[in-house]
Structure formats: structure tokens, C-alpha cells
């Protein structure tokens, strides 16, 4: 039986299908007590999507498919995460990264490539993975990364 919840967010009232609920057993760093989120899409802001907290809808994080920004992004999911989220196949994994959008200067937005959010779409369990020791940083300038990605793609042509 499908349960639908209604929540009021800054995007207006949303009907959430429980099937789309994403569960963070550990919460998210900074919001450890908040475990239930949903990804909201809005045409106006695509491809930026919004990770909205169900219990506290004022908590909203802008997220995006990181490969739209860094074409050669490499996410190494450790065994602990694979077990915790019960990941059975790479195909079941959805990855989004958090954006910080300065309100006075949105062109300078940054993306956190060091800590991607990993979601197992089969069971909706998720975690913000922290790739300590990787080449990535917490703040990559989106406009610079896009330019870099463009160069990479042009070389391949």
C-alpha cells in the first residue's frame, strides 16, 4: 500500500510518495538527527535538484549529478558503505553532490566532490560518503570544473 505524506516546503506543498523517501541511517553531517529526505525536482532550477528533509522541511540542500560538472568524477564506494546500504549492483546506485550557492553571487557556486551522497535506489538507504584521501576537495568551483570538463570532452572528439 502506497502511503502519501504532505509537507509544506519553500517550494510549496508537496505530496511525498513513501516510496521516494530516502533514509539516512546516520543522518547527514550537520543534520545528524534528520534521517528522512526526499529529492525534489523543479523545472526552473534543473539540473539542480533539492534534497528536502521530511521532518524539517526548512532543511533543504541543493544537489546535482556531479558528472554534469566533472566528467571524470570517480567515486570509490568502500565496503562498509556497500554493506551498510546493502548495495548489490553499481546500477542501483544514485550519486548526487551538494552545492553551495552564494546568494549574492550564484555564479561562484561550489560543489562538494569529497563527500558525495550515495543512494541505493533499491531500498532507498543513503549515506554521505566521505572520500578521505581522495584527490577531491570540499569546494570545487563549478564554473571552473565545467570549463575543465569541456576541455576533456573536446580532446576525446
Amino acid at each position, binding site marked *: 500500500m502506497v502511503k502519501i505524506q504532505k509537507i509544506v516546503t519553500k517550494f510549496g506543498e508537496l505530496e511525498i510518495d513513501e516510496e521516494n523517501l530516502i533514509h539516512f541511517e546516520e543522518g547527514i553531517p*550537520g*543534520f545528524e538527527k534528520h534521517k528522512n529526505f526526499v529529492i525534489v525536482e523543479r523545472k526552473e532550477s534543473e539540473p539542480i535538484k533539492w534534497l528536502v528533509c521530511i521532518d524539517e522541511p526548512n532543511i533543504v540542500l541543493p544537489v546535482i549529478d556531479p558528472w554534469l560538472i566533472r566528467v571524470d568524477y570517480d567515486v570509490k564506494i568502500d565496503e*562498509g558503505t556497500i554493506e551498510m546500504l546493502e548495495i548489490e549492483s553499481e546500477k542501483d546506485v544514485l550519486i548526487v553532490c551538494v552545492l553551495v550557492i552564494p546568494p549574492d553571487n550564484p555564479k561562484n*557556486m561550489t560543489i562538494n566532490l569529497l563527500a558525495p551522497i550515495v543512494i541505493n535506489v533499491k531500498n532507498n538507504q543513503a549515506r554521505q560518503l*566521505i572520500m578521505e584521501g581522495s584527490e577531491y576537495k570540499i569546494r570545487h568551483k563549478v*564554473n571552473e570544473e565545467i570549463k575543465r570538463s569541456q576541455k576533456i570532452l573536446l580532446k576525446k572528439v
Partner: protein
Amino acid sequence: MISLLVLSRKKEESIMIGENIEIKIVKIEGRSVKIGIIAPKGIRVLRKELYDEIKKENIEAAKNTVLISFKDITGGVKFENKS
């Protein structure tokens, strides 16, 4: 309420947290200490500064959620979705 438990350990001595986590003092070198950690795979073990930085970044991200148009920022550049 969380309280800080302070224990003194010598090199090679360990601390158990619960039944599954062990913290061992591996080496003491001048001002730094090498700490060995044995913990179940699912438990995240991290330098605190890194966790705090990510925490700060997430909180910052949640502050700024104006519905903006991505195209305005990137000039409409798009890539194929790899995943």
C-alpha cells in the same frame, strides 16, 4: 548529555569502545601520536576536522536555497549523464 572520558595510555596500550571498537596507541613521536583503530566496516572513522568541515559545508549549503536557474550560471552548457 555527552561527557568526555579521559584515560591515560602508554604506547602499545589500547582502549575498547563497546565490544567492537579498539583504539590502540601505536607510536608516540614528539608532538604527535599514531593511533590504530579497529572498527566494524560500517562505522565511519575520520579525522574530526574533516567531519567538521563537511558538517559546516552542509549547513552552509542549506542556508542558500534560492530557486535559481542553472543556465544563468553556466551559460547552458550540458554534458551527457554518465551514470
